């Protein structure tokens, strides 16, 4: 009789539950989800376990906060239904523990309580519960809240997975960028003696991992050599790729084949023809220098580049500047070569504008006059030291670890 009665009660509940479309939906996806029930009251706990098991959930249970927390850490259930009032570790302290632990802090917690005052609910939410359920709630409400909690848990889990995927891809991309950066740096010339009496030092600090500035030396013969520094507009990987491609054009054999001259103006005129604006309007600026030792003359041409100067033994500074279009701005442009006589003790500095267009924390640019003053203060110290101290001074002005733009500079001691 009693057995029959129980059976009839169960059957009534099931029949009631199955009439509700929400519950039908629930049964179909519940099987793949785990719910942990932490409650010290055996009757309430057992009833909840039975209800959720019947709906197809995988149900775990704990009779106190401490063992509940252990289960949560071990099993990572999709949802934890937590009793507020428990001896020792109560529901609020349980929430505190969960939100402190980075491994489980995203766990979904549905707090079950007899309290239903707004202040208490607010306190529970503030301490880390995600939702509340009254112990007097109907079966329908319980199921709906469990489903809602699990939906949120699924979204959070998906977000965690996607974040992890992005992090891995970012790591991979970072490693590839570093590898590309090592390649770009391998294109830079070795410092030291370029020709008898001509010593070169350089410094290169890309703003991002990969920079768009490049410089190099072209060894024409025993008494003349070319030097260039180019700067690709734009940000990111693209300028670095374009610079690397341009540097191939600027190799000695390529220039002999395609330009047939060591004249800086002729080289830039041909480069202007071969490197038009990109479809985004990106382009190069460049200075190309020819040092002719026999005639003691420096020849140069620029395309929108303003960063090179001669420093005389007296300290006088002569900027090598022409008003000229960057490459690609006018496909028909002819670039002119200018000449400057060299004097004993001259030093040549070829640099990117990233070395002087550096803002202070207030936005004021360091500028060419401060750069000149810093270099004058350095006097006749070795060129490598001058470069290193100048970059340090620029970095102090900027006040941040990284420069906003690529910094590239070559210093050449002309002991001729």
């Amino acid at each position, binding site marked *: 009789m009693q057995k029959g009665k129980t059976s009839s009660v169960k059957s009534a509940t099931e029949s009631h539950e199955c009439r509700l479309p929400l519950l039908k939906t629930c049964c179909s996806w519940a099987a793949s989800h785990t719910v942990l029930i932490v409650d010290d009251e055996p009757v309430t706990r057992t009833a909840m376990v039975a209800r959720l098991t019947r709906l197809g959930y995988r149900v775990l249970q704990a009779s106190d906060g401490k063992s509940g927390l252990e289960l949560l850490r071990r099993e990572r259930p999709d949802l934890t239904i937590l009793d507020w009032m428990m001896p020792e570790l109560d529901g609020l302290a349980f929430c505190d523990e969960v939100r402190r632990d980075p491994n489980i802090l995203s766990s979904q917690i549905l707090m079950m309580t007899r309290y239903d005052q707004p202040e208490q609910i607010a306190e529970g939410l503030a301490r880390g519960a995600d939702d509340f359920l009254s112990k007097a709630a109907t079966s329908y409400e319980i199921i709906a809240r469990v489903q809602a909690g699990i939906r949120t848990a699924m979204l959070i889990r998906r977000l965690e997975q996607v974040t992890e995927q992005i992090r891995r891809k970012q790591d991979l991309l970072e490693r590839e960028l570093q590898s590309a950066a090592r390649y770009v740096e391998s294109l830079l010339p070795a410092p030291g003696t370029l020709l008898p009496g001509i010593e070169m030092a350089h410094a290169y600090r890309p703003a991002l991992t990969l920079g768009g500035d490049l410089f190099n030396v072209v060894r024409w013969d025993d008494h003349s050599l070319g030097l260039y520094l180019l700067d690709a507009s734009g940000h990111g990987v693209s300028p670095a790729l374009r610079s690397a491609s341009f540097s191939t054009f600027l190799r000695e054999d390529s220039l002999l084949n395609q330009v047939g001259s060591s004249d800086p103006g002729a080289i830039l005129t041909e480069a202007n023809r071969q490197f038009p604006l990109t479809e985004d309007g990106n382009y190069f600026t460049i200075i190309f220098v020819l040092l002719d030792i026999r005639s003691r003359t420096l020849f140069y041409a620029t395309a*929108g580049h303003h960063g090179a100067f001669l420093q005389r033994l007296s300290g006088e500074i002569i900027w090598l500047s022409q008003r000229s279009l960057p490459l690609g701005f006018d496909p028909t442009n002819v670039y002119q070569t200018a000449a400057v006589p060299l004097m004993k003790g001259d030093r040549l500095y070829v640099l990117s504008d990233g070395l002087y267009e550096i803002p202070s924390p207030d936005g004021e640019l360091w500028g060419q006059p401060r750069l000149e003053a810093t270099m004058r203060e350095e006097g006749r110290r070795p060129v490598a030291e001058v470069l290193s101290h100048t970059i340090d001074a620029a970095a102090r002005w900027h006040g941040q670890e990284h420069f906003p733009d690529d910094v590239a500079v070559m210093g050449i001691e002309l002991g001729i």
Partner: protein
Amino acid sequence: MADAKEEVVSIQTKERSVPNGVVLELTGDLTYANREQFKAAVEAVRQRGCRHLILHMDDVRFVDSSGLGLLALVSQNFKLMQGQVSMVKPQTYVREIMTLANIPKLIPVYDNEQEALAGYKMAA
């Protein structure tokens, strides 16, 4: 050649027809960050067959290296269809940057729209 200016300021474009041309009033910064907005506004004018684009620069505070490239590109695209880009009233700082890059050689700079229209008429 990255832009030293960290603050992101957008660019607004307002189009106005004048006899024998279209004026594009620009407000904001012409920079790498705003390149798509600027390109789209200019392309819309060009695709309609406009031959003379006047960029009104009075409210442009800053042009970075990418902005200079875009101006050169726009000028080239208009030349391809026998068109012309002119510029009106760039602010002092913007004018200096453009002079350094020799932009006025590609895009004539005028003090007002009447002069720009007269300049185009003479060239045509």
